[in-house]
Structure formats: structure tokens, C-alpha cells
């Protein structure tokens, strides 16, 4: 039985007002849904269902999130019956969303483990359907469309294909400093320090992108879904280009120099063999990739990057004073168990 968390109206109002309340439901927002799609009339629809922290004083790992499902009645009238069923609980026992005060909103907050991906559907006035707010959707094998969400630190690939991830990892690695001599020394030390029993789990295998690819996969699945098409087109073009230049080696296995050269060409927006008809500006994609990669490797690990806080640890180790004390003591501010702040709960 998935536990229901008690939250107050003030918390729920705060999840709703800025994003859903409005007079003009026209397409004001572009998350790849502009036009007739009603989600273009919602601010940041990707925030739904809300995935938040929840503090448990008895759980040192802080292993759970609070996930709040929100339904806003299309007719703006209260009194609709809304239930949710999903992979986080028994699919045959739908859970009711409760009316929020006297409004046309209904909500339910559940405690769900971090690192998971789930699908769900809503039953609205007896009719099962996908969540009309949440843009994340997935097709199950039986051809039925479900809504999807993921909790903090999820590592299952969501929108990138396996080959795309491999190729992307090489591009991210070229941007980041971890493939340098200094970076390799750092990685070896981290790896050795873990000891065989504590080596990173499969999903956090140490690679030179330090989780940046997983971060990008989650970003493209949610906040910046409007850029998924950029990645799909450009990775396909790059794959084709590299196969053309090196017919006998899989692109993601090619030597670093090949990616360095490709990067240089993309920076000038002049890439030999690039299909400009399909994607006009390879430099734009490079800029996008630079922002995503840098953000992924240095942001809070809850977003799926900065695996094992490697980005932060790299700076922590690189910058030290004469006595050996670090000059980036990030753990001092950050919550346990990632950091060691005794007051802040994350």
C-alpha cells in the first residue's frame, strides 16, 4: 500500500496558483505543444505531478519523494470524481484525489521511492484517461497510452535511444574536463577509493560525462522536452556523418580526435557532409549541448546528473589551499546523505 502523505491546503495552493490559475487559456507557452494542445495554455505543465522532497527523521537515506497529483476540472466546477491508478501501487485499486477546499482542483500526495519511473492514468467521472496536464506520456506494449513521471535521481533511459546515449556521452565528454590528464587521475582515485564493495552501481558507472547524459535524458523528458527534436535530428546526422567518415567503426567507439574535430567543425557551423536541409545550424545544437552538459554535471544530483556528486568532488579536490584544505567545501551547505549539513534537510 503506497502511503498517502498529509499536506495542507497552503502547500497545495502553492503548487497550483501560478501555473494553472488564469483567465486566458490560449497558447501562451511553448514546450513543444503550441497550438491547439491545451497544455500550451498551462505554465510549466511538466511540473505535474509535483515531485518534492519529504523529510523522514528515521530514514538516514531519505529514500522517498512526495508526489502530488493534481486535476483541474476543465469546466472549472467542483464536484468531479477523480481517481488515479499507477505502477506505484496496485493497478486495480485506484486511489481518490480529494477536492481542494471549494475549488475545481482535486489532489493526492503519495510517498514514492526516489529513483523510480512510473506510469499512471486518471479516472475522471468514470472515464479512464491520461493526465490532461502532464505532458509526459508513454505507450505500453499493449498500445495503450499512459502518463508518466519519475522521481529524483531516476536513471532509467526515458527518451534517448541506447545508441543516442552512447554517442551523446562522447560529445559530453569532449566538453567536460574529465578526459584530460587531471580528470583521469581524479577518476582513478575516486574509483580506487570506493573499494570493490562500494563501487558505483551499474547505472552510475563512472564515465567521463559524470551523469550528464542521464541528466539530459531527464531534461528532454520533462523541463526541456521542446529540445528533444534537436537531439534526435542532430544525433542522427552525427551518427550518419561519422559512419560515412569511418565506415568500419561504430561511431561511439571512435577515437577522441574524431569527436574533437567534429566539435571544432560544429563550433564554426561548417560541418563537412552535414545535412543543412534537416538542421540548419549545427552550432546552435552545440550551444544547447554545452549548457545542458555543464548544468548536468554540476547541478544537484536529484536531476539525474552529477553522479555520485562527481562534478562537485572534482572541484573540491582540484582547489585546495597550502594546508590541503579544500576551497570548495560544497558538502558544508548540502543536506545529508549527499552533504553533511546538520540543519538543512534538502
Amino acid at each position: 500500500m503506497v502511503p498517502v502523505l498529509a499536506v495542507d491546503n497552503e502547500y497545495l495552493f502553492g503548487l497550483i496558483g501560478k501555473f494553472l490559475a488564469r483567465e486566458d487559456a490560449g497558447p501562451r507557452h511553448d514546450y513543444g505543444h503550441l497550438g491547439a494542445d491545451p497544455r500550451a495554455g498551462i505554465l510549466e505543465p511538466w511540473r505535474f505531478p509535483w515531485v518534492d522532497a519529504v523529510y523522514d527523521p528515521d530514514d538516514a537515506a531519505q529514500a522517498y519523494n512526495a508526489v502530488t497529483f493534481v486535476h483541474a476540472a476543465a469546466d472549472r466546477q467542483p464536484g468531479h470524481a477523480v481517481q488515479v491508478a499507477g505502477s506505484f501501487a496496485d493497478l486495480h485499486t485506484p486511489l481518490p484525489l480529494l477536492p481542494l477546499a471549494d475549488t475545481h482542483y482535486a489532489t493526492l500526495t503519495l510517498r514514492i521511492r526516489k529513483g523510480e519511473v512510473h506510469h499512471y492514468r486518471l479516472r475522471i467521472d468514470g472515464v479512464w484517461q491520461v493526465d490532461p496536464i502532464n505532458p509526459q506520456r508513454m505507450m505500453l506494449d499493449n498500445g495503450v497510452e499512459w502518463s508518466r513521471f519519475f522521481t529524483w535521481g531516476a536513471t532509467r533511459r526515458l527518451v534517448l535511444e541506447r545508441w543516442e546515449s552512447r554517442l551523446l556521452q562522447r560529445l559530453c565528454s569532449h566538453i567536460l574536463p574529465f578526459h584530460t590528464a587531471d580528470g583521469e587521475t581524479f577518476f582513478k582515485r575516486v574509483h580506487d577509493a570506493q573499494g570493490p564493495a562500494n563501487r558505483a552501481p551499474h547505472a552510475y558507472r563512472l564515465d567521463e560525462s559524470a551523469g550528464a547524459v542521464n541528466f539530459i535524458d531527464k531534461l528532454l523528458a520533462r523541463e526541456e522536452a521542446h529540445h528533444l527534436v534537436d537531439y534526435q535530428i542532430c544525433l542522427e546526422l552525427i551518427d550518419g556523418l561519422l559512419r560515412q567518415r569511418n565506415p568500419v567503426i561504430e561511431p561511439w567507439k571512435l577515437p577522441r580526435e574524431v569527436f574533437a574535430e567534429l566539435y571544432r567543425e560544429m563550433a564554426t557551423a561548417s560541418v563537412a557532409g552535414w545535412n543543412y536541409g534537416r538542421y540548419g545550424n549545427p552550432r546552435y545544437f552545440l550551444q544547447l549541448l554545452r549548457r545542458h552538459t555543464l548544468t548536468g554535471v554540476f547541478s544537484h544530483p536529484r536531476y539525474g546528473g552529477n553522479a555520485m556528486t562527481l562534478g562537485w568532488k572534482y572541484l573540491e579536490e582540484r582547489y585546495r589551499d597550502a594546508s590541503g584544505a579544500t576551497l570548495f567545501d560544497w558538502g558544508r551547505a548540502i543536506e545529508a546523505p549527499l552533504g553533511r549539513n546538520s540543519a538543512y534537510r534538502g
Partner: protein
Amino acid sequence: MERFDVVIIGSGAGGAPIAARLARAGHSVLVLEKGPLLRTQEEHPLGVSDFKRDELFATGAEKRLTLSGVANHFDSFYSSHVEPDLNDEPHIYEGADGLDRATIEGYTAQVVGGGTQLYGAVSLRFSELDLRLGSFNAGRSDIVGDPNGDVRREARDWPIDYATLEPYYCEAERLVGINGTRANQGKPFSADHYQTPYAPNPISAYVATGMDALGLPRYRTPLAVITEDHAPSGRIVPAAAEAAKTGYVNRYGDPLGLKSNTWVALLRPLSGMANFTLRANCVVTHLEMAGDRISKVVYRDVAGRPVEVAGGLVVVACSAIESVRLLLLSGERDPAFAARLNGNGLLGRHFLTHCFGGAEAIMPGRFDKSVSLDSDWATDACASEDFIRSQGLWAGGAIYNNTSDQALPISLARTHGSQDMDTIWQTFVDDTALTGDALNAFFDANFGTRLSVSFMANQVPLFDNRIELHPSIRDKWGRRVAYIRKTWHSHDVHLMNVFAEQCRRILAFGGDGGKGQFPVSEFGAIYMAANARARIANHILGGMRFGSDAADSVLDPNCRAWQFDNLYVTDGAFMPTSGGANPTLTIQANALRVADQLLARL
């Protein structure tokens, strides 16, 4: 219709002090706030705060501007989790090229506590001279860059003097909870309520050295962050040493409530009082009048439903641009309202921000800047009459260093070469050479080594600098949005050059132990930015100046609209001049002063 003794629109620096004082006196008070109530972890049902130490809270994922009719259509923008969305509620400014653009500038934060949730918490007083710049400049012929005598014509004395405001500064410092030091400040103090500041970040020693070498008396920058238990608000400082020094300061809400935003400092302590009501997520759409009184405050609740309430007194304090806009929108619906409020045509006029800028350098040493608050050292040396006259200036300002800026890796990258919130990330993504070893070199050069010194000084008030309603662009409620039309006066340019040079000298003398030869490559001021007309520093002032002459001001000396019996405006809009320091403490002090006037009426 519900009735309250007082309805206050906005829960930030201009509204909360009045709510606190009037509620404690037993009057029924309703505070309406457009944004949500985001709480500290101790008061939150999930045991965690809605604010996080998370760089993606300060500047989030990319969004794209869909507004039509603006020159930056389809540009990227990045906002914090409590700033309004530009597609839903933009500010529009007119650029130097005559084209309109949407901007995040001029918004503080839509949240209970307003801008005090995200600000760096610098809590300086204005100088005694800041309040009498009209008389100070009358008859002067030595003001540089003012060929048409605009400064003499437009400068105004405030209708109150420093001595009148001083007790309220003391009271604000006590109630809000501020750390700092009094010695060496250029302003008179009748009481010292400062808490003891934490040790400065070691990088700030360069600034101390530079100020000392130049003979600039320095003091610890007053910051609205408690370092000790704070009895007036009931806040307790955690046992962990210097818990608030995290680098997650400016543009971050504080999950522990140690930053003295107006929620934790002033409003939360009222929570159990039956006569105090706070309604978050409620946007006031307009006011209605009957005779010379505001008869209705109309707002949309969290479900978007219109609700009407009445207040014996109505206080508008939702930040200067939005306050002007609210009153213009009310006048748009009712010409009689417009005529009564704006008979002299000054509503929205003399809009102000600050002259601001500074200097920045890569210092010889590296330090952990993530163990910091927003600022360590300040000086009032450039606010003295001698300095002002010697430089041909009309007014002075404050200089202080920034400690927490670029302290964290993403903020260092995304602000690399950018000038403001509208150009964030641009330089880093353009600088495609920064990869691998070059990226290492970038961090080696910049991480923990950059130090900036800023100035905050008076901007010349000009009739043509104004807030209007945009002719065509509307917000998500179908209301016309604010249109910012402003430029910089030639004297502002001179003043900013003078102050930027002072900032440069502090770093030049601080960087080499007092010889003055340390290279400072970056110094200047905001007028040099490509989008200089948009830049506001989130110091949103003027537009409804107060004064002693009804023909020359919008508000009377008590911040009451001249032709209304019960309408008051207490955010930064009341200021006839912008002061030579960050404005929040002065807005809070003035709000407490106005609260005393309201108490006398109730």
C-alpha cells in the same frame, strides 16, 4: 462582502511592516499576495522547505518567449522558481532602438515576502543628504553633464527629513533582524540593534586593504540575516557554526529562515492571531472607488474566481511597477478613478532605479566563496558632501563588495560575460573553446578568485522616465502589462563613471597590498550594457512620489494618495529620489512610519 480594517496588497518590504504593526494593535488586517506562501522546513508539512540550496532554483530550465510583437520573440529565458513567467506576466521595455522587448528586469519575486525572499539582504540606510537633494542642488552651477539644468529642476527634497525617519530605521533594524556594524557609517544612529556579523570571507580582505589604503572608512555591510537568536521574530539560529554562510544567498530563498525576509521576520509571528489574515496566490485585478474612498478591492483567488473585499484603509505595496500598473488598470476601468488619482499627470512618472555598476577582478589568491553571505565590507566615503562636490555630482552613493556572486560552479558559468538576467548563459555557450583543458583553465582562473565591488547611487529623476500600460500586450488575466520607458541622463553617466573608478581603485589598491597597480580589467556601469534601458537591479522606485505639494506629487507626506481618503502606497513607488543605497530597509522604515500614521486614524 468581507470587510477588514485594513487591506494590504503585497506582503514584502512595503506591506508587511504595516500588517505587523496594525495587527498587533488589534485591528483586522488582510494581506493579499499574488505569489504562494513558501515556507521554511520547520513549518512545512513535508518537513522540508519550498526553498532549496539548488542552483536550478535560482535560474531554471530554458523557456521560450512566445509573445508576439516584441523584438525578442522566441528568445530563451531563464527565471527563478518564484519570478513570474514572461509569457504569462511580462514586463515590456522600450529599447534604445525603439523596439519593445519583454524582460524579467523589474520583477522581484512573487511569493509571500516579495523581494525580501530572494534579495542579497543588503540593508543600508539612506544618508541624511539623500533626503534633501532638491535644496542641496538648488543654485549649483558645478554639476557635470547637466547642460539643461535637469538636475536642478527635477531634484526634490523628501517631505520628511532623516531625523523623522531615523527612529523607524532603528525599529526596522530591530524587528527585521540585521547583522552589521555601526562604526564608520556616515549616517547618524540613535540606537544600535545590529547583531554581530560573522567573520568575513577571506577574499574580502582585499577590499578591506583597498579601502584602508585609500582612506575610505569601512564597516561591515548590514545584512538582513540573523547570526544570533532573534527574539522579535522568535527565530533560533542552528548550532552549526555560521549556518547561513552557504553561497546560496542572492536569488535564493532561505530554507532555514535565517535570512530576514518579511514572512519569517514580520508576518509569521502573527500567524496565530484571529485578526490577521494572509491570502496567498491571490492577484488583485483592480480597485473601485466611491467618492473619495476605495470601496472595493477585487482579486482573483487561487481558482481564478473573482472576489471582492473592502478595507477601511487600503495599502498598495506590490512593488513600484506593479503598484503603478494596478492603479492605471483601475483608472482604465473607471475614468473618474483616473481623474481623481492622476489629475496632475504624475502617476507613473519619475520612475527610478539606481545608478549601479562597479569593478571586478581576478585576485591573486583563491578562496572558498561558497562559505559566504552576500557582502562583507561597505563604505559611505562617496556619500559625503565633500566628495560629491569635488566630483561635480548631484548626489552620492554606497560602495560595497559582493562575496557570494559566482561562488558556485553553474552560476560562474552562466553569468560568464553576461550582463543581466536577460543574457544569462549566452557567453558561456558561445565560448565554444571552453572544453576539456580549456574548461579546466577557465575554472582555474575564475573559481574562487573573482571579487567584485559595487556601487549603488542616486539616479536623476526625469519626468519622461515612466511606467505605462502597454498598448497591446496582456497578461494571463487579460490585463494590459506594464510598459517601462526610461533612459539614463547624461549626468547619470558621469556619476556612474566616477563611482566605477572608485570601485576600480579599491580593487587596484587591495590587490597589491596598497600600491594601486593591481590590474582591474572589468569596471563600468549599467548604462554601458546593450540593454541598459531595461536594467533595474530589481530596485523599483518612484512613479508615485510623495511630497508636500499636491500639484507636484502623487502621494502626500504620509504616502496617502492626495485625492483619496483611504488609499496609501508604501512600496518603493513613494520615493522622489532613489537614495544612495539599496532601498529595502528604507521602504521598511517608511512603512513603519506610515503604520504609525494609520494607527492614529484607526
